[in-house]
């Protein structure tokens, strides 16, 4: 792995609500190398989106980054002023969201939206901006890009719309692109196309991808490395193939068992018992303990992250011994 372009250590983002402190992201550490694709997987409410927004410095109040560090190409982002962060957003670290219908402005042409995004960081003539916009649109697979600059988002199909959003995120050749479930709202066939294109783009431009998804199957076709998030923490990480073949954390194993592809036709799908815990004042210890069949006395304490070679797991009873071949 090349030198990390993005280094996150002990990132902690809390939401200070009236009901109490919600520990949405609770000490997350990981790093991403240049051109690497990292999949951040977890259920709804596991804190994966908040992690993404924390990287961008875009956590909405009442949430804020409480502690930890996010280093982009060696530069510390946590603690930067809004304006300093603004100068980096879109140019060095960019983000695409789930629903392109909601992210693109319905009353502005995509040409206008792209010009606005270009002029946020570069002062260029309108003509040069248009040429650059058309060029990036072509790269994400939009035919006749030049003539489509005058079109409005509703004149594009869902997949094309998301391509436009991705093009906007790629306008400045960011080193890191955070993608928050960008294909969830799309047809399966379009999903596959966009996944492939994103992977090729990342390889071509050296852009590192942080791919946030609840869909383990999708991410595993795309990512080099997997981060599995549960209740605001990364419970397991490692190369995709290795994690899928040999999950160490009981939660990861549960997720894999619940994939429809692993079930026999006619058989009930496996479910992890229980529900995601509330992140509002969680009890100490392993957050997965109430749902875990391997839980013991030990688990009332916080399990540390144990790294061995390229794998990491936060569990007192990793499944290593039991499943190892």
């Amino acid at each position, binding site marked *: 792995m090349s030198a990390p372009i993005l280094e996150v250590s002990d990132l902690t983002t809390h939401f200070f609500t009236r009901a109490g402190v919600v520990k949405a992201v609770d000490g997350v550490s990981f790093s991403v190398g240049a051109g690497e694709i990292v999949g951040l997987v977890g259920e709804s409410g596991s804190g994966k989106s908040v992690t993404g927004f924390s990287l*961008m410095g*875009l956590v909405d109040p009442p949430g804020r980054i409480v502690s930890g560090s996010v280093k982009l190409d060696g530069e510390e982002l946590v603690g930067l002023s809004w304006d300093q962060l*603004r*100068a*980096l*957003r*879109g*140019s060095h670290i*960019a*983000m*695409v*969201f789930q*629903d392109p219908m*909601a*992210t*693109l*402005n*319905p*009353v*502005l*042409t995509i040409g*206008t939206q792209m010009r*606005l*995004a270009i002029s*946020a*960081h570069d002062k260029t003539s309108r003509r040069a901006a248009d040429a650059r916009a058309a060029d990036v649109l072509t790269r994400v697979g939009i035919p006749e890009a030049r003539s489509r600059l005058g079109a*409005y988002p*509703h004149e594009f199909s869902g997949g094309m719309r998301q391509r436009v*959003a991705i093009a*906007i*995120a790629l*306008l*400045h050749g960011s080193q890191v692109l955070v993608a928050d479930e960008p294909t969830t709202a799309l047809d399966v066939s379009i999903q596959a196309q966009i996944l492939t294109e994103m992977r090729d783009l990342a390889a071509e431009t050296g852009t590192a991808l942080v791919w946030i998804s609840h869909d383990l199957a999708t991410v595993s076709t795309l990512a080099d490395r997997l981060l599995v998030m549960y209740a605001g923490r990364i419970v397991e990480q490692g190369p995709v193939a290795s994690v899928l073949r040999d999950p160490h954390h009981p939660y990861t194993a549960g997720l894999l068992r619940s994939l429809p592809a692993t079930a026999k036709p006619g058989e009930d799908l496996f479910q992890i018992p229980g529900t995601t815990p509330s992140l509002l004042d969680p009890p100490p210890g392993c957050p997965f303990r109430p749902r875990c069949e391997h839980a013991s006395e030990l688990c009332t304490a916080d399990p540390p992250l144990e790294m061995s070679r390229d794998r990491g797991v936060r569990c007192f009873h990793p499944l290593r011994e039991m499943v190892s071949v």
Partner: protein
Amino acid sequence: MSGFIIQRLLQAILVMAVMSVIVFAGIYSIGNPLEILLPPEATQDVRERTIARFGLDRPVVEQYFYYIRNLLQGDLGRSYIYNEPVLHLISGRLPATIELVLVSVLGALFVGVPLGMLAGYRPDALSSRIIMAVSILGFSVPTFWVGLILILTFAVQLGWLPSGGRGDTAELFGTAWSFLTLNGWSHLALPAINLALFKLAIMIRLARAGTREVMLGDTVKFARAAGLSEWTIMSRHVLKLISIPIVTVFGLELGSTLAFAVVTETIFSWPGVGKLIIDSIKNLDRPVMMAYLMLTAGLFVTINLVVDLVYAILDPRLRKGGAA
């Protein structure tokens, strides 16, 4: 687009036709103008000549068609009271109302929308709370009372501004306008502020509500993620997203203020059409009432048409279905 316009024009003609029937019937039924036109001691001979002169002996349907025929030829009749052509009467007064209303409604728009957006952008800031308090005042304090207080404060106590009249005017397009002279502006200021307060309150509310909603959405978040400055986001993204309801209410307010600026015009002795219509209702001056109400209806129809066209400019998604 042209199909849409033609369709709307046909609708407008229909509305105007229906309005003319309702207005004519309404005015016909509220009283006989003879009682006011003639002195009590008028002889039978004078009575009959007057009736014949105004065509009041004809059946109502015939009177109506007679009126419409003249209307289509551009003849709105003569006022019973002033014995002047109605067209002349109204067009002499209309510019005064138009300039007062435009100054106040546009002022409310250009002050209210930025204030509302500011209040929606930082809903918890002290400035936002002050803006909202002002808007509540604008909603709840009656116009006539504000007008009187404005006169008491700025005209009587401080003596800064005149309390009434149009002041010096200058010619443009063959009519006299106050907004072309400095003295005219000093006369315009108080009535315009008086008239603008309520509209200002509405604009603030609308802009604030729209901004709050849009600020929470993904469009703003995505624009921020692309590194756009807050100013660009507000002025390019948010302003356009919140503009449709604002344009709607702007149109409605423009129409209703043109038609019903009566109270303010009365308080500030502003020689607009509001004063004229009040006088004509008191005197049962049928041709003036009729012309005024038809004008008002025409105004609303026109403004609504323009507002619909502006929608299509503002929101591309509304253009497709336009011809349907």
